[in-house]
């Protein structure tokens, strides 16, 4: 995206935000429609869980909706949106519910058996078998977030710093150490059961 295109997109986004705030349901629909996929994919990459991403995306948009009137108009929308999604994910990781559901699912088995929706079952298995997802899961949530935001979401380092409310230097060092950690993980065979051919294919 060129600078001019980005400016036009920002202006357009501001118009939609203003209209949504004034109660225009079409604008709200446009706001969610434009950003739902972006937020959903970010949460899938961060959490590695299709179901969870659905729940957290809905919570994210609820917080966006409630926080719109308190948002600084000069603040760029995209980092603000990612920040809310990130905080929703972090809140989930820290929550009692997360710890207990993870423990319970561990007892029930991890192969996705018993999933009601076959499509979701396939999706879940695909994510579980992905070497990339397994690598990302090995990172701490802080490191994972910077990798996902930079590598997949294509945010600039400045935007990541704004999103995570960190100094630019911290973002750089986190990203640097995260990639070193990924490299070491890949070299150390700490991810048993994965082969290159497993990636992205149904089992």
């Amino acid at each position, binding site marked *: 995206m060129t600078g001019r295109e980005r400016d036009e997109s920002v202006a357009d986004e501001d118009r939609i935000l203003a209209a949504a705030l004034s109660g225009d349901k079409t604008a709200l629909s446009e706001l*969610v429609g434009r950003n*739902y996929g972006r937020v959903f994919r970010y949460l899938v990459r961060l959490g590695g869980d299709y179901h969870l991403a659905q729940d957290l995306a809905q919570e994210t948009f609820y917080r966006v909706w409630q926080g719109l009137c*308190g948002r600084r108009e000069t603040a760029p929308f995209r980092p603000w949106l990612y920040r809310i999604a990130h905080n929703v994910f972090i809140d989930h990781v820290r929550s009692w519910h997360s710890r207990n559901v993870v423990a319970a699912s561990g007892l029930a088995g991890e192969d996705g058996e018993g999933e009601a929706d076959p499509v979701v079952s*396939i999706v879940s298995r695909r994510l579980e078998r992905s070497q990339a997802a397994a*690598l990302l899961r090995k990172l701490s949530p802080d490191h994972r977030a910077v990798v996902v935001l930079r590598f997949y979401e294509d945010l600039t380092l400045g935007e990541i710093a704004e999103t995570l409310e960190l100094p630019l230097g911290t973002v750089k060092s986190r990203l*640097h150490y995260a990639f070193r950690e*990924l490299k070491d993980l*890949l070299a150390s065979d700490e991810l048993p059961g994965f082969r290159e051919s497993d*990636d992205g294919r149904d089992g």
Partner: protein
Amino acid sequence: MPKTGHPCGGRERHPAPWPAMREELGLEGRDFDAVAAVLAALPSCEPPPGAAETTVEWLASVPRPGAFRRRLLAAGPRPGGLWWTLAVLRSQTRVFSFGFWAAAALVSLIATLVTLYLRLAALSGRIDLTAFGLALPFGIISPVIAALGVSYALRSLENGPWEVELSCPITPAGMAMGRFVIVLAYVTGLSLVAALVMGGRTQPLAGTEILTAVVTTWLAPVLFLGAVSLYASLRFSPLTGTVVSLGLWAALLTAGHYRPGVGLVADPGQAWLSVMPAAMLLATVALLLAASRAAGQAAERAGRAAA
């Protein structure tokens, strides 16, 4: 992002240009290319069909942003005016129970009666009151009531309702100041009644003497101790606010035993006059810090909730 029939079909194509990113991070070696290749193979997941529409429908059914605040503000007078200020004060009087009003009035009554007795005894020549000062013991009790009252008004800081109170349309700083003003107003009211009782029974003073006496020996200590209590309660806890303010007052009262001319018991008028400018400056700073702290608490909670 390629759309597929399958919600998690295809592979990610990392949009960030990898060579530029590698350079940006100072990563060297082919191993990092292997990492990028693995990350790029992450299955690309699309949200389930209709998820965005469902979210829109759900959002449209919840109250619009700020609706609660707007509704509350619309129900009352416009912010900033006299009626609004009075409405704020009225709303904050509800945090005080009947026990507080009654206990403060009872303590003031006892202090007034003792002071009255001492002054009548001094007038009849039975005791020499100059060693104690004319304001005692009422002058000692009033600031204590103010300090305790402010700490009491902020007791919710420790037991949960503060979170709910912060969500009301009054700013937290306004709320804290409102409670402070209520306590001061109540203590002032009690003192006026006491002054009328004592004034009618003892020899009246000249207007300027009364004003000086009221400001220096009564109003200034009340304001000073109330402000210290307010800040310490917000910064630490209501209990700390009580301990700090009462400890400070006890030190000021008894300092004369260790340093002549400073303690309020030995020479209330002159001693207080010598420390009053510093005390008023400290009170102003304490009030500003208290307002800033209350506003900060709101921002912190709002930030946690909204983002």
